[in-house]
């Protein structure tokens, strides 16, 4: 169940009953939540961090997760440093969030890190705790998203806004729930799953940037993962792994990118026992809704006031959300506003109504202009991805002296064509034919290039501006 507004994460956890059987697995170590009763990842130094603005900057996810559990209710502010935070942005983050303490899994600060009052080393070996656990602080949780100018945007949440969509287990599980996610838990999509596991009487397997998709799947399967989430790109990559068959999930969740019909269908066939759901959520807007009917898009009936907590609307074709789960504000001097005067967050995700459903067509900023006509790369990708031999695709712009731009597609096939067997040309023809049937002419790619792979960023999303 979600914690009451004032309760800390540890308070919610320790009130939930037996912790000894619930485990957090990292890539290199694992602990039970019960181990935190007598031990602390921060050793004897937890109270040194009381009231401080703390940057949690560990390489390892398990270590970060333990620090978050312990510091909520203790620190004034927790900044979740993603592992790929570029060194040149650390000073900006430290200054903007008035960081006065850093928690790290290294023995000493990295060269170039600005000096702060406290540098505390954190470890999953959980040395004995020296003080009683007590909360009391209303901790701000700060998530970093990649800004358009390169500097990260710092998005302010509370535990209550982060956990607002978590309703606890609705059906009694016959076996214990073990969550996992391809996401890093320092990102919104991963943090959601981490909190779902903690607040939902479950265990969790954490991913690692150091680990291949195949190795992660093997580890997750060995731990008996029952619930697992990732972006559509994560899932397309996972389904390319021979180890994907080892998982037997009861629940498969997609978020962070548009879930097209092809990936939903493929997951349903691949994991016939699983409930497949795609969620709409963003760091700023929070979790808006889950769609569980197996179809892309969402029912038009979701628009309007869903509850006292949540209202959705479409304005200028973009989805807007007002809810208690949205972030409070951005940190920083730029004064970017997060919500409009009425409290709606503009997601920048463009939707289109067809029949009684809305479909995501792309990002506002990602529009390609072909001779004055707008093309969302994602809508073209959705058509291409529907071809049974296509694993994933990236539609991008190619400059053109006549129309300003054309769209072209880079396509990853389920099996690479052998050079010279004629299959490539036949497939190009089939994919183009599919596009011509489904799309207006100017949206049909001028070229289909077969590529061995596409770059998926650390966020789990296809890298659109390589």
């Amino acid at each position, binding site marked *: 169940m979600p914690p009451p507004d004032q309760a800390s994460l540890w308070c919610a956890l320790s009130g939930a009953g037996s912790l000894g059987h619930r485990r957090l697995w990292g890539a290199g170590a694992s602990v039970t939540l019960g181990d935190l009763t007598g031990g602390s990842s921060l050793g004897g130094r937890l109270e040194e961090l009381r009231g401080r603005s703390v940057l949690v900057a560990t390489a390892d996810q398990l270590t970060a997760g333990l620090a978050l559990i312990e510091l909520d209710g203790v620190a004034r502010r927790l900044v979740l440093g993603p592992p790929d935070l570029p060194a040149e942005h650390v000073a900006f983050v430290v200054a903007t969030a008035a960081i006065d303490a850093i928690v790290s899994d290294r023995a000493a600060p990295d060269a170039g890190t600005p000096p702060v009052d406290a540098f505390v080393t954190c470890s999953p070996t959980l040395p004995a705790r020296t003080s009683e656990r007590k909360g009391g602080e209303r901790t701000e949780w700060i998530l970093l998203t990649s800004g358009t100018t390169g500097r990260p945007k710092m998005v302010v949440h509370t535990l209550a806004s982060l956990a607002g969509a978590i309703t606890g287990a609705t059906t009694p599980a016959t076996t214990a729930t073990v969550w996992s996610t391809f996401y890093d838990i320092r990102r919104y999509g991963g943090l959601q799953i981490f909190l779902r596991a903690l607040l939902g009487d479950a265990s969790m397997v954490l991913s690692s940037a150091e680990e291949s998709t195949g190795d992660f799947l093997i580890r997750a399967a060995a731990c008996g993962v029952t619930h697992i989430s990732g972006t559509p790109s994560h899932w397309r990559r996972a389904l390319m792994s021979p180890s994907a068959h080892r998982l037997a999930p009861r629940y498969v969740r997609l978020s962070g990118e548009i879930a097209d019909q092809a990936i939903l269908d493929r997951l349903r066939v691949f994991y016939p026992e699983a409930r497949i759901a795609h969620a709409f959520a963003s760091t700023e807007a929070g979790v808006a809704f889950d769609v569980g009917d197996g179809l892309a898009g969402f029912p038009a009936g979701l628009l309007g006031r869903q509850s006292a907590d949540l209202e959705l609307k479409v304005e200028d074709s973009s989805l807007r959300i007002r809810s208690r789960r949205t972030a409070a504000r951005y940190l920083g001097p730029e004064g970017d506003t997060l919500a409009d005067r009425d409290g709606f967050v503009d997601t920048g995700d463009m939707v289109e109504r067809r029949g009684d459903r809305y479909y995501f067509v792309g990002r506002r900023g990602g529009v390609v202009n072909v001779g004055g006509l707008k093309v969302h790369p994602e809508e073209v990708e959705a058509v291409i991805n529907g071809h049974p031999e296509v694993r994933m695709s990236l539609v991008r712009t190619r400059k053109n002296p006549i129309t300003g731009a054309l769209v072209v597609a880079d396509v990853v096939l389920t099996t690479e064509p052998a050079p010279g067997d004629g299959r490539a040309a036949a497939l190009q023809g089939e994919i*183009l034919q599919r596009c011509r049937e489904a799309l207006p002419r100017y949206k049909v790619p*001028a070229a289909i290039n077969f590529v061995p792979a596409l770059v998926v960023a650390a966020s789990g999303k296809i890298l659109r501006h390589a």
Partner: protein
Amino acid sequence: MSVRSSVISQFEQVAREQNKALAPPADDLVLLDSGLDSLCLAIIVARLEDALGVDPFSSAQDAEFPVTVGDFIRLYEDAAA
């Protein structure tokens, strides 16, 4: 394949793909009357850049826009020369 025949074959192929009725591509045929619209021409330019390695529209500083099919072919012949 000569530049001329490359250009003509792209005209024919793109017209076929785009379901456009292409007038016989004689040198004096005005491009705007050829049956090809600007999207077709855009695709032809992109394909010719891949095939011939040149895009005379983008590379020439003061290239006049071709009016006829003959102008269009000459633009590519000059760029490829």
